[in-house]
């Protein structure tokens, strides 16, 4: 059941050998937009849109190229150039075009391009729209590098590139100090994850003498379990940072400071799923390290629950969606930790989630657009009447994330729940139940969000709010994403096409029966989801929602504070850190300098010396130095004698 690994063919044909264009086109777009200056303000955004679609077009060519070949013939290595050759470390820059990377390429470029289009209208009145598109292009280029790299180190470059783009875009309106803080926080927390990532790469080099996928995966078969476990756990730390998984989740909610298209693209559909990509890509490492796999599953289970609880308490529509994203990625992580079969479903859910969550974020942006940029759902209500397209697209996204058949989420999430119930001993029960209950809570908080915004007893709009539907440039991308939310799962799920597509990468694993019969699980899931919706209906549709949030239970209040994640980080790291730096600065100014100042005193006192230098008595100064040297020399000679 090990994955077929390390068999990559040299790229052939113009489409494959020029796969680097995928990265180069958006990178070029970013460069032109940044260097071009104000004179590009008029049309620069269209250049950004064009570059993104061009990357999609090349991605589609690659996809059809691979499709025309047999399963084992679908992994190509595109050699670019000699990158680093330092001592024994030698690494070429190269790309890996295979079913997994192409699946990501299509998601990133397609959803990314739609969001580019949406942003043209959304950012229309922003004076820095050109810069915004430069960053979006930079993001697309980095993300494509991340998924196409053929070595861990090159992946790391893309990994940090998307982090940089995320930093720049969260802080896009950094004249607001809170937004600037949010941007910095995202970068710093990600850097904590990067420690794991960097150490994992070093450990790989130490063990295998190389950091390319091909060599690491080939070496993994011979390596002992301890080594693979260490590498697997370190990679998991990196994945936790990027994918906002517990305990490195705290940055995602604050990242909603960025313009909404950014939240949709980077912090919902693509970048935050990079951790899942990393784990799935590293499957040959995890297959040999069951403990590391278990850790992945545990992290996934904790995060899916954590995000779901937080999502129930947020009144900020974007933060509620962010909590939901965290939770859904928890599902993907959980699945990825379950081995090759789970990994295929993780990618499946990642793709459907990319569509429905991006769609809902764009919907939220459309609502904000119509509501004077308010994000407080307690000031919304009954918007379905005035924003019909937004409502309809959001409806499809809502049905998809709930897992209502036949919408997309049903196909991907139900599979994850089923797979979580596979296994022996306590694990299927704990992880399966977590996934199952998570589905119920998801149904509750998403319905709460949906009803509070679009339905309910009353309109709680602010006096100056005149909600209206958004322009076509915004609604068309929303409609396309909504269609994906509706049918993508059906298309890929019924035919099992995705699992087949990924099989050459992940390897084949026999189907195992869950501990409960599948129809029972499916029935239980649907019943729980229905209960969640019903509860939300009673609380937020059938009753009027107060404009100011009630005090709430202890759990509600904790969830509003994100279960005290910031308080914990502050208490454990920030405050002690500040204390440490302050103490060190004090000591450095007095202590260390003072101690070494003693050396100066030894020569005769710096102050007095200074005056004498100024009065021209440099000679006596030099003489005393010389005396010192003579003594030292004498000492050395004495020792040698």
């Amino acid at each position, binding site marked *: 059941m090990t994955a077929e690994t390390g068999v990559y063919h040299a790229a052939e044909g113009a489409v494959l050998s020029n796969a680097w264009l995928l990265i180069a086109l958006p990178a070029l777009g970013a460069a032109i937009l940044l260097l071009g200056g104000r004179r590009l303000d008029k049309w620069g955004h269209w250049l950004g849109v064009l570059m993104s679609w061009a990357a999609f077009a090349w991605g589609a060519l690659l996809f059809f190229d691979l499709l025309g070949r047999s399963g084992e013939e679908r992994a190509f290595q595109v050699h670019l150039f000699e990158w680093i050759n330092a001592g024994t470390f030698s690494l070429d820059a190269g790309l890996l075009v295979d079913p997994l990377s192409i699946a990501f390429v299509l998601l990133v470029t397609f959803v990314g391009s739609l969001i580019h289009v949406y942003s043209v209208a959304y950012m229309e009145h922003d004076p820095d729209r050109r810069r915004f598109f430069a960053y979006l292009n930079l993001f697309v280029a980095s993300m494509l590098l991340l998924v196409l790299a053929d070595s861990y180190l090159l992946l790391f470059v893309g990994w940090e590139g998307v982090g940089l783009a995320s930093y720049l875009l969260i802080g896009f309106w950094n*004249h607001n100090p809170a937004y*600037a803080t949010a941007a910095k926080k995202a970068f710093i927390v990600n850097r904590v994850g990067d420690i794991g990532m960097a150490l994992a790469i070093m450990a790989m080099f*130490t063990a295998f003498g190389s950091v390319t996928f091909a060599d690491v995966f080939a*070496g993994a078969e011979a390596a002992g379990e301890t080594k693979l476990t260490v590498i697997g756990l370190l990679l998991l730390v990196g994945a936790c940072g990027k994918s906002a998984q517990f305990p490195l989740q705290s940055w995602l909610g604050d990242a909603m400071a960025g313009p909404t298209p950014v939240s949709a693209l980077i912090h919902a559909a693509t970048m935050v799923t990079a951790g899942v990509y990393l784990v799935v890509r590293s499957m040959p490492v995890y297959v040999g390290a069951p403990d590391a796999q278990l850790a992945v599953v545990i992290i996934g289970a904790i995060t899916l629950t954590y995000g779901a609880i937080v999502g129930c308490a947020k009144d900020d529509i974007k933060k509620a969606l962010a909590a939901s994203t965290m939770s859904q990625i928890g599902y993907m992580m959980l699945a990825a930790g379950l081995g090759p079969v789970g990994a295929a479903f993780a990618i499946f859910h990642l793709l459907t989630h990319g569509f429905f969550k991006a769609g809902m974020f764009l919907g939220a942006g459309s609502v904000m657009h119509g509501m004077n940029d308010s994000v407080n759902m307690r000031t919304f209500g009954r918007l379905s009447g005035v924003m019909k397209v937004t409502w309809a697209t959001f409806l499809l996204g809502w049905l998809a994330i709930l897992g209502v058949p036949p919408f997309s989420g049903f196909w991907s999430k139900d599979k994850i729940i089923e797979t979580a119930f596979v296994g022996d001993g306590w694990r299927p029960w704990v992880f399966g139940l977590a996934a199952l209950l998570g589905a119920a809570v998801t149904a509750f908080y998403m319905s709460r969000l949906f009803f509070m915004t679009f339905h309910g007893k009353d309109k709680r709009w602010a006096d100056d709010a005149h909600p209206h539907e958004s322009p076509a440039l915004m609604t068309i991308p929303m409609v396309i994403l909504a269609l994906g939310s509706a049918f993508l799962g059906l298309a890929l799920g019924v035919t099992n096409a995705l699992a087949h597509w990924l099989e050459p990468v992940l390897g084949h694993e026999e189907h195992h029966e869950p501990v409960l019969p599948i129809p029972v699980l499916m029935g239980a899931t649907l019943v729980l989801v229905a209960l969640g919706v019903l509860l939300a209906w009673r609380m937020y549709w059938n009753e009027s929602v107060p404009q100011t949030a009630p005090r709430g239970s202890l759990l509600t209040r904790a969830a509003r504070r994100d279960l005290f994640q910031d308080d914990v980080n502050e208490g454990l790291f920030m405050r002690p850190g500040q204390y440490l730096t302050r103490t060190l600065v004090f000591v450095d100014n007095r202590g260390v300098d003072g101690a*070494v100042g003693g050396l100066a005193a030894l020569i005769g006192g710096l102050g007095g010396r200074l005056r004498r230098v100024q009065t021209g008595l440099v000679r006596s100064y030099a003489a005393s130095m010389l005396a010192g040297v003579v003594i030292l020399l004498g000492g050395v000679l004495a020792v040698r004698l």
Partner: protein
Amino acid sequence: MDFPWLTVIGAVPLAGSALIAALPKALAPRARHLALGVSLITFVLTLVMAAQFELTRAGEIQFSEIHSWIGEFGVSYALGVNGIGLVMVALSTVLVPLCVLAAWNEIEPDRARLFFGLVLVLEAMMIGVFAARDLFLFYVFFEAMLIPVYFLIGAFGSSERRRYTAVKFLVYSLVGGLIMLVGVIGLYGSGPGGEQGFLIDNLTGLDFSSSTAERLMFVAFFIAFAIKAPMWPVHTWLPDATDEAPAGVSVLLVGVLDKVGTFGMLTLCLPLFPEASKWAAPVILALALVSVLYGALLAIGQTDLNRLIAYTSISHFGFIVLGIFAMTSTGQTGSTLYMVNHGFSTAALFLVAGMLIKRRGSADIDDYGGLQRSTPVLAAGFLLAGLSSLALPGMSSFVSEFMVLTGTFVKYPAVAVLATLGIVLAALYILLTYQRMFTGPIKEYAAGWKDASAREVWVIAPLVVVILFLGVYPKPVLDVINPAIATTMQQVGVTDPEPTVAEGENK
């Protein structure tokens, strides 16, 4: 006889400074043009020389010149560079024109002759110290280098403390230098003596009578280099010096001059005292690790922009020393590349900082805020320089920092793990500063500010281009360094550890 490239490259700036000194008062404002021209000629000459450097022999000394100087004492005038020396000479000659350009309007015309003359003298000394192949000659340059810096800080410092700072700098360096002198003489005594007794090649691979003597001499050299580099705990002169020095001088001081310390460790300490180097490595690694973390923590706590950059450099020097004494080819190659990259990224930081300080009239970080809106180009310059300083992948500094860490990890995983914490601290000191200076609402003080002028863009742009280019394609530099490091590894008598997992059949 071959063309004496190194002598010429060193003599051009020296002649230039003499020319500047000879300028009549009326022409004093022209000093800067002259300095720029001379430093550009030097740079071009270096490029021409580098083009003739034979890559296949990069581990050996090339462009050798040997003349007897003081035969009775075994002192020769001997120059030459291997790959490591070449990149350091190149780094020096690239940065000087940019520093001249950065100081273009900073120096009052009547003092311009002194300033630019001293900068060119300093350049000549830097080339000399990196090219010297005679230990005594090295020592002479090592000490002579202090003189122009002493005057540059003492005469052009920004506050009343400049004299104190200049003397502090001098005292620290002289103490280090004199301790080294003891080692130099001691080593000569252990060598073959004769007319060329100070030639480094004649002192390499000596059979020391006692390991104590070797160790003492090693320590004498190492202390001098540790002060120069500066490492914790002998680092405190550096923040003071950068606090006072004009931006261009800080660049040369931290970007090039301090590298003499790490350059000396790599090209003198290791080959001259191989056994002692291995003996001292654990202690030095510990000191380097402390420097990495201590420098970064102190940087986070700084309120003054120049001092902050100085502390980041202390952290970076820690990385460089770490890579050298990890005794792996990857670590040492990484360290050498780090010396080059650090030169560029720190130069960019100091120069942008200088432009801001010039406008604001203060180096206090809290006096800034909201500048991203008023001066977007300067903000972008600072952010790029900062990202390079925090070793963002894609930038040149990432390659070197990662190689240092990897080269350390294969032998000392625990040390590497702790040093890797530095990457979070680096993100903190850069991004906190960026946040404090550039984000937030537009403030009144910056109302009349002009964004970067064409001259300022020309100062920063070449650095950014190099940083990005070497991040993507460091091969030209690495190709020069690798063979030289291989030679060093041989001289020290260490080998790289093999991968711990035997690779199965290749693919």
